[in-house]
């Protein structure tokens, strides 16, 4: 685990209602790399309580749905996936 990556804020992409909550197409969270997806979700809910008002949201890591136990690595593409509504 790279100490510097750990400290660098991580860019998290936001779509749909997440973009509205974040106030733009992405947000930054620090202290995220090296931790679990579950802890990222907690950080997000603490810094942006409006995410708690959604029905649910998932997290994608490198274009795949992530499990809560997955580790977020520096350099990952991390995306907040609010409830989908295609079709």
């Amino acid at each position: 685990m790279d100490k510097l990556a750990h400290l660098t804020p991580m860019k998290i992409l936001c779509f749909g209602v997440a973009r509205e909550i974040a106030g733009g197409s992405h947000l930054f969270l620090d202290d995220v790399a090296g931790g679990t997806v579950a802890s990222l979700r907690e950080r997000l809910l603490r810094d942006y309580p409006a995410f708690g008002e959604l029905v649910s949201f998932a997290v994608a890591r490198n274009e795949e749905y992530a499990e809560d136990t997955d580790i977020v690595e520096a350099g990952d593409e991390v995306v907040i996936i609010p409830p989908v509504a295609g079709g």
Partner: protein
Amino acid sequence: MLSGEPLSLDDCQSFVAHPSCGGLCFFVGTIRDLNLGETVTHLEFEAYAPMAVREMRKIAVAARERFGLHAVSLHHRTGDLAIGDTAVIVAVSSKHRKPAFEGCEFVIDELKKTVPIWKREFRADGTHWLNARP
């Protein structure tokens, strides 16, 4: 496939048709003028494109294997759509008709569960991201 341009049923038919197939099933999802009793003026679809395409491909592969289909085509619009516009076209081909129906329904059901596409409804009382809030 994701597209910012109108979707064509004929293109989807050409893609899945094959001499060994006797049954083609299509689902076309269009924009309704009413949702939950509210008048809708238009809609906007936003996608996390690279992941949406990956998820769509996964669904197509799963449907082919599970129902023994010959081919699956899955096209979804992005951008602004008016009432009556086509949002999605699913096309599948199969030797026989039963798996064609089952496979086509499976694809649209799965799309609505997993593909990262979001729909924003524009109504008289404002805009709403569908499914987002309780």
